[in-house]
């Protein structure tokens, strides 16, 4: 090889050196580390990195992402998850964050993955805000300020520590990192910037789908506008000379770059999460809109206003005039427009405008809080600029000169105080007003599901809050519920605006309605176990035929249903083509890899200042910030004062309406409010101090009262009416409506009150003085126990361990019609010598033997029968689907709400399938009825508990008998107070004869344990004497209607 002349090499090197130094001299700026940014990062790590351990697990969403993470950790390329909703596809959510959690979980578990991502997200956010602010203001100090306040920004704190929206945060942070690159591509046209900007956009797409789509509209469009403005400025020389004509010309000039970027972005959005789009097209979201606080009218529902408006805006509200002023300057005009639109959309249902802009569909699907988040993030650079001017810039000088340094310092202190208060308030909101139940130790549940093959059935958690996702992440058992509602498939769920079955009590009719369906027909879903963390649901479970199995060491009560078959080993699933699964599994992390590859060098150089970087072109648009706009100041001051007045006025208003003892009505309302929230001392303080009731006595009386109203209800509405007022005495007639899991209760109480020293007090209500006969008494009872498997073995149950199904006989049954609805009523008896747990499945057939409807008897029967015990039953045919018409939803919940099945044809015959299994629990019959007086329109009597356990809730099943003594109708009533042991409880019920039309009394299709009922009848009941059964509860000659009473009661402390 010929040698190259040394001199030549020297020459070339020298020339390059000359060129580079010349370039440096002209363009390079000496850059020091931005101390504000460094402080911001350290603060962010300290503040969020420590507080996350106390907040993240109580957030709404974080555990859902952990659950998805657990899915990818187990089956990376499988997009079908069987844990929730009888199986759903995970294609409904971009997977990057979940896959990252999964990847990190291999190092330190799922929660380690989540916390690591929180740290990464926080870092990305703070640095993102810095880069975005630098792009907007071209001022490193201002950008530093913006980064500093971003750490404590209440909207960021709320989104992370209250909502737990990790993907959303990572998405917007990466988008902010992309913005400078996009600017540079559009401005300079360097391909390198196009590549980096698109690569960052790809990460955004794979971490959150909504962010890039709306980010295009709200962040990138204004950015394009700003680039064009900057270019126009460069062309025109001054901002004043920038005209529309120049602007349009610049647009034409840059059109190619915009187009290239636009197409690139679009391709990325489509390709990176292609399976998501295909899935969305194939399985459109059928979910009925689920109410969300961000769509409320914030003035009406102030709690939503607080969470979705006041908190995220926080201190930004004060500087709103400045933000508007700056964003509506020529350069930022498009940001101003975008900001205004975001602000407006974030107000939800307060005005009809957001709904008009977004359209009904999008309005009902999107949660609008994200617009507020984006708006508040968009405002951060300008807020930073304001703070800079206020703290060390022209505003400070102006204020100090015009007023005094004290004025400046004082307003600074107030501003800082408000800012920090909002941050602290947001952070601790979850502590003061917990949105989640206490943290549940999941290990006992996981162990329970693993034991004895319990995972072969589905389970349902109740009252778990968002922690249900954490349980799902740890067990392979599946549930019918879930926490990602757009992925649902069961029409029972999609047709109802229920967030989760687990917290269905908060969703009123629809919630409880959905839950009731699952409880009534559990075998359809292979649902056998319910974990109850909220005793509110207990009565509902009991009267639906479930029984308590055990209380686990974490306090969760396990309920079980007899006779439910296990899940088949293969469950239906939707498979997707392999290429899609591969794309889904590889692209997201690949995008991160690409970004790291492209940016690692510049990141290294930027952070460690190994090489002096070229100042990006946006840095040349730095504003002097020398003279604070004088005209803005009075306006800002007015705005601040107005805001303060508004807040003070709100506080006074709040105090006045909540002042307790101003009027008799207020006193009564306050009393019940305190009772409802179990603030017994407060309610005691409202009782007449002249009465001889001591706090001890009051608390004692409270402690012995139990029952549906005192333990399982929520005060729904209270109306007070001043019945009479004479001097210092008044009588307030009070109507209370309570909601309980079983029915709505109306209560009417006349309270007498006395005014003492200007304050109204209630006279305490009389309590029972009844004293039971014996101090100590005994009861003897036959109890039952079933071993299950007699040998401890994981094999299937041996056949000799399987008990015989109890023999049950249907005494009478018929299909009746009542006002266009169909019901099957009848009576059955346990003929066996062992107790029976009974479920009844009824099917209606048309004349052509077509199945019309099918449903199970739920609470209109006693499910657990002692040997020879009888129960009346009624099967109603409930529609699986909620009414399709979108009639306005009832505001409060009514557990008795019921949607009748739409029956296409006239039913002609019916089929009853009775399944009896051996019952061992909840077998009690200790309530005696005394002095039963049945008149034409009422039943009165006294219930007396002869047993040793309190009957918490008593159900009266009332059968209407026809002249032959057969059941013609069945109805039920609940007694609102508990019947304590050896105590009596008076009851009085209105009852009216029900005119039903007999459709069929053909009992040929009645089957017991698969055998014809007639067969049972022939063998065992041929000599049955029916005469003795009639009139059993009624006086012989009282009217045509005769009634029979059957008692069924729930004992709360049975375990």
């Amino acid at each position, binding site marked *: 090889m010929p040698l190259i002349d040394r001199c030549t090499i020297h020459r070339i090197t020298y020339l390059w050196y000359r060129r580079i130094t010349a370039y440096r001299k002209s363009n390079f700026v000496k850059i020091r580390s931005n101390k504000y940014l460094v402080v911001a990062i350290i603060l962010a790590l300290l503040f969020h990195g420590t507080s996350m351990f106390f907040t993240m697990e109580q957030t709404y969403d974080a555990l859902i992402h952990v659950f998805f993470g657990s899915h990818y950790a187990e089956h990376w390329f499988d997009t079908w998850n069987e844990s929730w909703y009888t199986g759903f596809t995970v294609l409904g959510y971009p997977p990057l964050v979940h896959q990252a959690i999964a990847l990190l979980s291999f190092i330190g578990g799922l929660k380690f993955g989540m916390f690591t991502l929180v740290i990464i997200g926080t870092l990305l956010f703070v640095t993102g805000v810095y880069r975005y602010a630098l792009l907007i203001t071209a001022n490193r100090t201002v950008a530093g300020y913006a980064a500093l306040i971003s750490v404590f920004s209440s909207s960021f704190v709320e989104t992370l520590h209250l909502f737990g929206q990790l993907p959303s945060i990572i998405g917007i942070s990466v988008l902010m990192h992309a913005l400078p690159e996009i600017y540079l591509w559009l401005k300079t046209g360097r391909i390198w910037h196009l590549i980096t900007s698109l690569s960052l956009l790809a990460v955004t797409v794979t971490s959150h789908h909504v962010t890039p789509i709306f980010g295009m509209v709200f962040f990138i469009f204004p950015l394009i506008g700003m680039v064009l403005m900057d270019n126009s400025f460069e062309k025109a020389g001054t901002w004043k000379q920038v005209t529309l004509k120049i602007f349009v010309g610049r647009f034409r000039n840059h059109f190619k770059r915009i187009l290239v970027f636009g197409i690139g972005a679009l391709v990325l959005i489509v390709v990176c999460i292609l399976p998501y789009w295909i899935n969305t097209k194939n399985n459109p979201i059928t979910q009925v809109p689920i109410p969300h606080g961000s769509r409320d009218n914030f003035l009406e529902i102030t709690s939503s206003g607080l969470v979705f408006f006041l908190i995220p805006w926080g201190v930004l509200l004060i500087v709103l005039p400045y933000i508007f002023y700056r964003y509506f300057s020529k350069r930022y005009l498009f940001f101003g427009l975008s900001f205004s639109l975001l602000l407006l959309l974030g107000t939800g249902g307060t005005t009809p405008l957001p709904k008009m802009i977004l359209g009904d569909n999008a309005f009902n699907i999107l949660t609008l809080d994200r617009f507020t988040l984006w708006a508040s993030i968009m405002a951060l650079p300008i807020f930073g600029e304001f703070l800079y001017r206020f703290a060390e810039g022209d505003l400070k000088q102006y204020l100090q000169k015009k007023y005094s340094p004290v004025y400046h310092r004082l307003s600074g202190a107030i501003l800082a105080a408000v800012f920090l208060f909002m941050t602290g308030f947001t952070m601790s909101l979850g502590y003061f007003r917990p949105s989640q139940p206490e943290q549940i130790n999941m290990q006992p549940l996981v162990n329970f599901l693993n034991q004895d093959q319990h995972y072969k059935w589905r389970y349902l958690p109740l009252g778990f809050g968002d922690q249900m996702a954490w349980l799902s992440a740890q067990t392979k058992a599946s549930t019918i519920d879930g926490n990602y509602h757009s992925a649902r498939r069961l029409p029972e769920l999609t047709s109802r605006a229920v967030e989760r079955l687990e917290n269905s009590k908060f969703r009123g009719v629809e919630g409880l309605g959905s839950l009731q369906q699952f409880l009534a027909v559990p075998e359809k879903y292979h649902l056998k176990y319910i974990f109850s963390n909220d005793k509110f649901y207990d009565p509902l479970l009991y009267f639906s035929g479930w029984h308590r199995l055990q209380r686990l060491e974490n306090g969760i009560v396990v309920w079980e249903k007899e006779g439910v078959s296990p899940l088949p080993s293969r469950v239906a699933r939707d498979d997707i083509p392999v290429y899609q699964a591969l794309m889904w599994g590889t692209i997201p992390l690949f995008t991160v890899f690409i970004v790291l590859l492209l940016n690692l060098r510049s990141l290294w150089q930027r952070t460690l200042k190994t090489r002096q970087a070229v100042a990006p072109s946006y840095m040349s648009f730095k504003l002097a910030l020398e003279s604070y706009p004088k005209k803005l100041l009075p306006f800002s001051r007015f705005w601040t004062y107005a805001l303060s007045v508004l807040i003070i006025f709100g506080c006074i208003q709040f105090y006045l309406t909540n002042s307790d003892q101003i009027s008799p009505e207020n006193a009564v309302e306050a009393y019940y409010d305190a009772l409802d929230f179990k603030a017994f001392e407060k309610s005691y303080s409202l009782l007449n101090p002249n009465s001889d009731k001591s706090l001890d006595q009051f608390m004692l009386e409270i402690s012995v009262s139990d029952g549906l109203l005192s333990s399982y209800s929520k005060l729904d509405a209270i109306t007070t009416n001043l019945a009479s007022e004479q001097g210092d005495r008044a009588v307030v007639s009070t109507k209370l409506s309570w909601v309980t899991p079983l029915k709505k209760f109306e209560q009417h109480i006349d309270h007498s009150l006395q005014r003492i020293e200007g304050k109204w007090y209630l006279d305490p209500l009389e309590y029972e003085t009844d*004293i039971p006969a014996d101090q100590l008494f005994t009861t003897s009872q036959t109890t039952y126990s079933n071993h299950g498997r007699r040998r401890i073995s994981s094999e299937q149950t041996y056949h000799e361990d399987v008990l*015989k199904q109890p023999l049950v006989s249907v005494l009478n049954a018929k299909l009746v019609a009542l006002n266009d609805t169909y019901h099957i009523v009848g009576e059955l008896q346990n003929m066996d010598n062992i107790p029976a747990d009974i479920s009844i499945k009824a099917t209606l057939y048309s004349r052509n033997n077509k199945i019309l409807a099918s449903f199970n008897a739920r609470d209109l029967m006693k499910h657990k029968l002692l040997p020879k015990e009888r129960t009346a039953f009624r099967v109603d045919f409930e529609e699986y689907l909620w009414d399709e018409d979108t009639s306005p939803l009832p505001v409060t919940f009514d557990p008795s709400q019921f949607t009748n099945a739409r029956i296409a044809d006239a039913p002609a015959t019916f089929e009853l399938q009775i399944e009896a299994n051996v019952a061992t629990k909840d077998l009690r019959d200790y309530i005696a009825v*005394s002095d039963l007086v049945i008149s034409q329109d009422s039943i009165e009597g006294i219930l007396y508990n002869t047993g040793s356990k309190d009957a918490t809730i008593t159900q009266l099943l009332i059968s209407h008998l026809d002249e032959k003594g057969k059941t013609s109708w069945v109805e039920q009533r609940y007694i609102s107070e508990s019947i304590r042991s050896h105590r009596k409880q008076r009851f009085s019920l209105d009852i009216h004869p029900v005119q039903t039309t007999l459709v069929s009394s053909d009992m040929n299709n009645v089957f017991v344990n698969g055998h014809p009922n007639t067969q049972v009848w022939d063998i065992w009941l041929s000599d049955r004497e029916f005469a003795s059964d009639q009139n059993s*509860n009624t006086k012989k000659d009282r009217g045509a209607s005769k009634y029979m009473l059957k008692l069924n009661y729930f004992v709360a402390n049975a375990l």
Partner: protein
Amino acid sequence: MSIGTYTAASIVISTCMALAILSFAPEEDLKVPSGFSDERRYELLPGKVEFLAGDSIRIGFHETGIESIPSKGKNTDTFLLWVKSSYGSVPVEPQTDSNNSYFQLPSFLCETAGETEVLLVVNNKITDRKMIRILPKEDSAITMESYFGPPSIQAGTADFAMLVTLPTDMYDNMVSDSTMVNIGSTFRRETSIFNIPMKNGYAWKVFPSTTTTGTYFVNASLYGFGAREMESEVHPSKPVDFTISAKREHDYADGNRLVRLSTSVLRDNYGNVISDGTLVTFEIESEQGNISKTSGTTINGVSTAQILHPDHPDTWSVRARISGIAESDSLKLVFTKITESIPINYYKLEDNIVVGPIISYMGQWVSDGTEISLFLNDNLILRKGSKEGIVNFSLSKLGLPSEKLTFEVRALGITETIEVER
């Protein structure tokens, strides 16, 4: 048709198809011997045709007239043994030792009991065939698969339990027909042994229900190899009519004490005490025809239930029922009143009606919680429980009009009136 039927049908069809494939596929693959060879040059050696399952089965062959077959290398003929057994058809290649060739049946064929036909195939032609029999190895460890059920039957003549047993040898072959299986049963201390012959692979015995309750313990064994003990309970039959009795501390209608109602020992029509836990309902009709009802479950045949004394003089007729099946005679209970009159006073200053102190049968206050009702124009205004014999109705708290009013006080079956001018 139910899903079960479909499943059953599909299982049957798929089993048939699998069997068909199993039985046909190998023959197609392995070129079924096309037919008998005319020239019977080779034949199977005579010898043992009966084997015990698990024995090694070796089948020799030879050229007609010649004692031994030269080893394979010196012969161009191809030999194959086609074995047709209950598992299907299997070809077996010959093996050669020092001077003879023979066929060694694979062990799974040697372990399967039943008739097996072996065909000698030479150059794809069948040249000889014979039947061999493999008998179950009955003296080996026998596995008894037995079922006895249902777990409970009802006393009487109609119901029965049944024992079915399927003994198999160590290779899971059914035991031969007519083999006697020993079935033992113990019922109420009496043990009996039955010898039941096997038929079609199983033996069974019906145990008819008895008129006395108890537990059947049964067991099946063969050649000393037994199955585990199994049981079925004879539950009592339907109960018959019975009598009842009542126990009370006193006869006063104080509305506080309890009457304890008990049945006689409930028995079925064969005299067995009925099962514990059977629900008995006591129905009480008062003089006015009001109904009271209480219930109890039986323990050792006796059911006991409690109910409150009435708070007014009354005569009860009590009857107990096991719904639709049996009932008792009627029992009369008389309750006498505890007081003759109720003192009532109105105190204008406090605007109070004070009822009492009501004095009970031996001069004591009526028990706390005795219900006193205040009526105005036959409308119930307030009902309160007494405390230390007294009830205080504070009219000012009731928001009643300030005029002359006539109140009625009703308690313990007594009605008193009072005129009040407020």
